[in-house]
């Protein structure tokens, strides 16, 4: 097998520092947004006692799910022994760590008492899916960190497969945990199903790969390195499979609910009467997030890199819409405490709960995205993560 040369990006150009500064600015905005929310309380957000998890959770859960998915490219290389993916693996691992960092920061900075994070680290209730996630997230950093080390340090290279396999199994459990955060909730009709765990796993495959592809293409385009079509075609085909699988899971989930009379009201809300949520579901999640990317990638358009990038961007936008519908849509529908009766109270019982995200919430979420990209931008400068060239000839040699 031919060897591949990895090299840091130089990172001294004006363009690099402009990108660094731009992302840094959003990290700063995120920090200010947190400071504002923490000082005045959640009263300055659009959240209330009906919509208790808002836009920050949409960003946080999306980033955490995408993080585990971003690791997939590395897993294919080491766990499934596909040599073509080996040069793509280090970026995959660092992106996974960076996205996880961004997601977790948004999650913990949105706590009512984010200053009490130490309490969450020292007091555990092992019946809580949240507690399990604390360990799953920490373990993810440890295992992917070790895996990255085995990829970068020749002296421990022989451990790469073992570390990669451990990280792969861990990430499957982790996304099961993330899906189960919702799957283990009995109160709301759209949660409380084992479907959510595998559905989150397949969503992570799609979102993570879409982000990975965009970062990969950007990194190669902006550093003037060659990225051949062989790599793009392979990853593009993989994305098609993942997006189609997401669509399959979403259809099965809603079809099953529609069959049960007790879920018909909530399904009608999401699929037909929910206003913004219905729009976000059909236009955002289904058309933008699934159908349009599939059409682009499966048609002749999918041969052009620009269109592949558009498809990736659509998958990401659709993913955020999906999280919005999954997290906020499920809360917006009123709890059915007295089936068959209409309810009215000062606490908005029996009515659809409105939610208007505030500016600080948006910037806290964007801050998480920015910190993930900033960490990646910094990492490719200081670590040898990117092959000097991924032209078709180099990649072809790997497979023979």
């Amino acid at each position: 097998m031919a060897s591949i040369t990895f090299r840091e990006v130089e990172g001294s150009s004006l363009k690099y520092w402009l990108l660094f500064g731009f992302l840094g600015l959003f990290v700063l905005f995120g920090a200010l947004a947190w400071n504002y929310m923490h000082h005045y309380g959640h009263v300055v957000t659009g959240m209330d006692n009906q919509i208790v998890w808002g836009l920050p959770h949409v960003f946080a859960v999306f980033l955490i799910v995408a993080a585990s998915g971003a690791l997939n490219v590395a897993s294919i290389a080491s766990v499934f022994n596909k040599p073509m993916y080996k040069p793509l693996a280090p970026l995959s691992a660092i992106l996974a760590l960076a996205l996880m960092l961004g997601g977790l920061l948004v999650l913990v900075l949105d706590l009512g008492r984010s200053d009490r994070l130490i309490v969450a680290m020292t007091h555990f209730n092992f019946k809580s899916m949240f507690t399990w996630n604390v360990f799953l997230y920490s373990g993810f950093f440890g295992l992917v960190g070790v895996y990255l080390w085995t990829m970068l340090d020749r002296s421990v290279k022989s451990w790469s497969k073992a570390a990669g396999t451990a990280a792969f199994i861990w990430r499957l459990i982790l996304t099961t945990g993330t899906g189960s955060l919702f799957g283990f909730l009995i109160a709301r009709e759209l949660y409380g199903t084992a479907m959510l765990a595998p559905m989150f796993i397949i969503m992570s495959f799609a979102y993570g790969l879409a982000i990975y592809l965009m970062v990969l293409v950007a990194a190669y385009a902006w550093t003037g390195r060659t990225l051949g079509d062989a790599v793009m075609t392979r990853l593009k085909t993989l994305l098609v499979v993942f997006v189609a699988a997401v669509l399959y899971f979403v259809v099965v989930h809603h079809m099953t609910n529609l069959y049960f009379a007790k879920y018909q009201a909530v399904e009608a809300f999401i699929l037909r009467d929910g206003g913004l949520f219905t729009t976000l579901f059909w236009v955002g999640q289904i058309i933008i997030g699934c159908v349009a990317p599939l059409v682009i990638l499966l048609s002749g358009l999918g041969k052009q890199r620009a269109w592949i990038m558009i498809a990736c961007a659509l998958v990401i936008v659709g993913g955020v819409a999906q999280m919005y519908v999954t997290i906020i849509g499920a809360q917006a529908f009123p709890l059915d405490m007295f089936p068959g009766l209409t309810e009215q109270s000062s606490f908005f019982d029996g009515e659809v709960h409105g939610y208007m995200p505030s500016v600080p919430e948006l910037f806290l979420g964007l801050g998480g995205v920015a910190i993930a990209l900033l960490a990646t931008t910094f990492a490719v400068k200081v670590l040898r993560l990117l092959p000097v060239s991924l032209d078709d000839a180099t990649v072809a040699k790997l497979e023979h």
Partner: protein
Amino acid sequence: MSELNSMSNQAPESPERRRFVGAATAAAGLAIAPGVMLYQVAHGRPDDQPASSAVRWGMLVDSTKCATGCNDCVSACSTENGWTPVAESEHPRQAPQWIRKLELEDPLTQRETNLPMMCQHCAEPPCVDVCPTGASFKRADGIVLVNRHTCIGCRYCMMACPYKARSLVHEPLNDTQKPDVPRGMGCVEACTFCVQKVDRGDGNTACAEACTAAGHNALLFGDMNDPESEISRRLRELPTKQVRADLNLNLGVRYHGI
């Protein structure tokens, strides 16, 4: 294993003595139990004694007696526990509500029902299951509480509660706080069954007292484990339901007339 064997070998040596000790203990227990119970009810629980699982505090809501437009239970709760009434709040949408009046109507028959809704003090509380730090907990006497000092404000309990019984304190609190009802911005809170009153030995909650004072008598608080208590007696007589009984959470609040 050998230890187990030796234990079982010893067992038949003094069966009579065993029976005597057992019977004597039971008799002594029976003799002093009512006294202890009376002492507890009359004087409250001493600070150094934990809550007892011999007691299960509960409430019977007779919705047939709950008056339309009456908000006395809500006002009494707000006064007792120091939370701002929603009508006086600057941010009513985000204001905590420990108890609220629900108006139900059957669209077919137009039958109207009024009832207060608050923490149902489940025996199997989903909020306690999901709380990552253990801040949500159930006392031995069945009262479900939030430890104000370990709650991190993650709101997972609010996602898990089928009764929307919990509120997050969204803004800094004014000086209406009561010394024995700790609250704070960023923490989750809910009905405590007036735990401070229960521990003082009042044997009643502010909402039930207010309902009685108004002459409605729709709320009855008491020990559901004590077969002689008023609440147990009424629960035996009246048909009652648990809200979302399908979830099998074994609620501490039972409703009549729904």
